[in-house]
């Protein structure tokens, strides 16, 4: 048995005295005529957060969430219940509630004679508890150092807020077909937020990063970069003028601006919307949805990335899924439920916020691959437009395909040169056609620093994005200057 599996078993099954035969009894309750699939998701997670403001770490918090989610699926019907207790009677009650969706009860006395075999999956991160990778005093000092570094940059820095979050997540997925998969998932994040003041103007800058590491990831060099980056943004914004309004050429910088791909393309290619035919991309596999230069993937296998998982929350190994290849729509992201109903293969995108939520198809790390252009050449090609390098987030209407993402750092491009910074610009476009307007793709593919969180139907999961510099002709910029 693997070390991960042993750890999961000791955290999740043993304290409640659960053994293999208990799992069999639960599946006997869940399975029955008409039931295609059932799974039981055990989870223990521990989360810690420290926050600094006004030069002091004033607050810290620790939380433990644990429980078991039980699901039974028949055709398109899903029954779901969960318990925050691990004892067999509580699980049995939850299994009955989940199973009640079907007309006929399972034969509770039979017991499923399925051999439960542990699946070995290559790990993309260490099975550590990141909360234990740094002493509490050192965590406090780390935040203080970042704050001091930010203040040192410029006397106009008036407020600095820093935040450190570490989470330890142990999961075990048992499926009706005997599959049994465990995962131990570390996740850390450090954020810096700065306000700079000049005369009457106040502006903010934000930065940070992290991933599936221990806290020793935050080396002096890395956190110094975060601090300087937040200050640089705030100071830039002090000089920013109102953004223009209207349709124009937009050049997106590399890395985090890949939020465009997440909103404009990614959500519309999630299997659930396409099974239901509610996505603007429904039924468009094989069609041209982007220029030849565009290849977009969702890759859950990048080691240590915030959006990566060794296995998804249904126990499927993650993979690199090609969504768009040389401009042609190739595939959707699937969980087991939607894959089965669409006659497709699961792609390792079945994710859930916790045991208390139902899994659904979600992105991991969504990226555009590098093209041929030098980034400088791309900027020089634009007479008049916007160069947007940082974003605060975005949203999409899956059905109409309209998406937005809001720039937190952007500049005018005038005569092939980056000129004045502009502020407060929301970009808006149409998902199925935005990539048909991509005329140049840079050779500088970059991933983001590890700060993304995606919300869907109220469930939050960590994700990543990445892209090279990219020129889009004719995107609407939502500034105020007409």
């Amino acid at each position, binding site marked *: 048995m693997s070390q991960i599996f042993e750890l999961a078993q000791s955290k999740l099954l043993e304290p409640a005295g659960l053994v293999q035969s208990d799992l069999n009894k639960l599946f006997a309750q869940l399975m029955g005529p008409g039931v295609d699939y059932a799974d039981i998701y055990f989870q223990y997670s521990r989360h810690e957060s420290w926050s600094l403001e006004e030069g002091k770490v004033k607050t810290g918090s620790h939380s433990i969430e644990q429980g078991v989610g039980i699901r039974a699926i028949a055709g398109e019907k899903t*029954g779901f219940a969960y318990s925050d207790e691990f004892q067999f009677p509580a699980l049995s009650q939850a299994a009955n509630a989940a199973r009640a969706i079907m007309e006929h009860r399972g034969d509770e006395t039979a017991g499923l004679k399925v051999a439960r075999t542990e699946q070995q999956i290559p790990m993309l991160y260490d099975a550590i508890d990141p909360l234990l990778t740094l002493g509490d005093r050192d965590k406090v000092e780390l935040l203080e150092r970042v704050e001091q570094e930010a203040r040192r940059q410029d006397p106009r820095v008036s407020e600095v807020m820093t935040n450190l979050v570490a989470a330890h997540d142990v999961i075990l997925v048992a499926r009706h077909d005997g599959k049994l998969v465990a995962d131990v998932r570390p996740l850390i994040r450090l954020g810096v937020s700065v306000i700079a003041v000049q005369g009457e103007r106040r502006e903010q800058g934000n930065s940070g990063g992290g991933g599936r590491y221990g806290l020793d990831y935050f080396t002096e060099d890395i956190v110094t970069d975060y601090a300087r980056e937040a200050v640089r943004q705030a100071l830039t914004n002090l000089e920013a003028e109102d953004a223009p309004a209207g349709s124009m050429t937009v050049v997106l910088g590399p890395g985090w601006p890949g939020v465009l791909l997440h909103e404009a393309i990614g959500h519309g290619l999630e299997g659930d919307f396409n099974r239901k035919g509610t996505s603007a991309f429904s039924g468009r596999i094989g069609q041209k949805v982007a220029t030849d230069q565009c290849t977009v993937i969702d890759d859950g296998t990048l080691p240590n990335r915030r959006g990566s998982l060794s296995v998804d929350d249904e126990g499927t190994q993650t993979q690199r899924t090609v969504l768009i290849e040389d401009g042609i729509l190739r595939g959707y992201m699937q969980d087991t439920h939607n894959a089965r109903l669409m006659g497709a293969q699961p792609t390792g995108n079945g994710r859930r916020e916790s045991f208390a939520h139902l899994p659904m198809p979600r992105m991991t790390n969504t990226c555009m691959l590098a093209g041929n252009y030098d980034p400088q050449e791309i900027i020089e090609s634009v007479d008049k437009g916007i160069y947007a390098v940082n974003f605060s987030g975005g949203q999409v209407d899956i059905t109409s395909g309209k998406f937005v993402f809001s720039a937190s750092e952007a500049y005018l491009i005038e005569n092939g040169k980056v000129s004045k910074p502009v502020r407060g610009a929301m970009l808006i476009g149409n998902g199925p056609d935005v990539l048909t307007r991509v005329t140049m793709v840079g050779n500088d593919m970059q991933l983001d620093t590890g700060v993304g969180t995606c919300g869907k139907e109220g469930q939050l999961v960590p994700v990543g994005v990445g892209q090279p510099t990219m020129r889009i002709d004719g995107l609407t910029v939502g500034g105020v200057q007409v």
Partner: protein
Amino acid sequence: MSRDAVSADGSSAAAQSNEDDSILQELAHHVLATAKRGGADASEMAISRGQGFTTTVRLGAVETVEHNRDKHLVVTVFFGNRTGSASTSDFTTAAIEDTVRAACSIAKYTAEDECAGLADPERLATEILDLDLDHPWQIDVTQAIEIAKECEDAARQFDPRIKNSEGSTVSTQRGTEVYANTHGFMGTTCATRHSISCSVIGEAKESMQRDYWYSAGRDYRDLESAERVGQTAARRTIGRLGATKIKTIQCPVLYEAPVASSLLAHFISAVRGSALYRKASFLLDQLGNPIFSDGVYISEQPHLLKAVGSASYDAEGVATKTRNIVQAGVLASYVLDTYSARKLAMETTGNAGGVRNLHIKPGSYDFNGLIKKMDTGLLVTELIGSGVNTVTGDYSRGAVGYWIENGEIKHPVEEVTVAGNLKDMFKHIVEVGSDVDTRGNIRCGSILLERATVAGD
């Protein structure tokens, strides 16, 4: 949140519920005592426990039935002026011990902060009002499925262009919350919340549009009928078919009531204590100054019966009260909890945990009257994206709605943004409608702005 196995006899359910409450109250005493044994000088804790189910029907068939049963406990300890906090969903004695220990351990490393601590004892609520918040809905899953079906059927039969559906959802929840602190305060609140919602998709000329509608309330008898929710969802979806972009323009903008409340939410996030003492607000030092046009009156009404935000006390046990926040456009009060009030050398306004039933005084125009009054401009019915900067007031969000000309709806609009600066937008509120949307914590009619920038082609 609510119960999934309802006892047929209401009185025995009530008795059961009282018994559960006393178990939670005992647990609260135990947590505070454990913190004291751990050396804490003061402590506070909150327990929430809820139960319910949510069922979704799509294209006439059951899609999901989700049963939820949640519990959560959070404890905050004070060692002098140092603070630590911890939470757990495990209520066993050992887990409670561990949780309190974790909070105490954190407090060893946090900094001295002279403003930290419990609320002042004289501000704590002494009277717990009966705000009529607890109305369990005695339905089972089968009945909920029938209601959801009725709702979705009404939407699908509304118009042949309704071709697809994201489903109709019925949810019923019942929860209990206990807050206690070492000043001797203990408050227990039992509340329900039920909802019916529907989201359908219309198709015309190879393009699809989705819209939705919902009804929600503490008492299921106050919900709109399933049929009406479905029809409204369908009407809104059909209205969006054939939407186009418009040319970039500065024009009047009318926010329909369900989205107008977001403008007030942005206002509140700029006058709450945590934004003010961090100087992260575009409304710093504005107390006593005009910040809205002079016809605007905003108040907080925490004691409304059955309302979503109603409460006798805030998240620190401080008594809530009905009060004015904006009078004739002038900022009359901030939104403070104990900590931010101390930071600002002011008094708490009983807003730990946020505002409760924010209310903007309705004017005399109804929704159609406002459209006539605007004459020509953009009616906004949905907003997407969070392009609001609370530090500067810069505002830019994606919008969907209708182009209005000569007081009539001309055509649906999509893929545009509405932008401006909130400082300026607040001062150019021309009218607040009488069409108040009471479903949420911000009770607001439609809002007409004199102008904003609408970016399109």
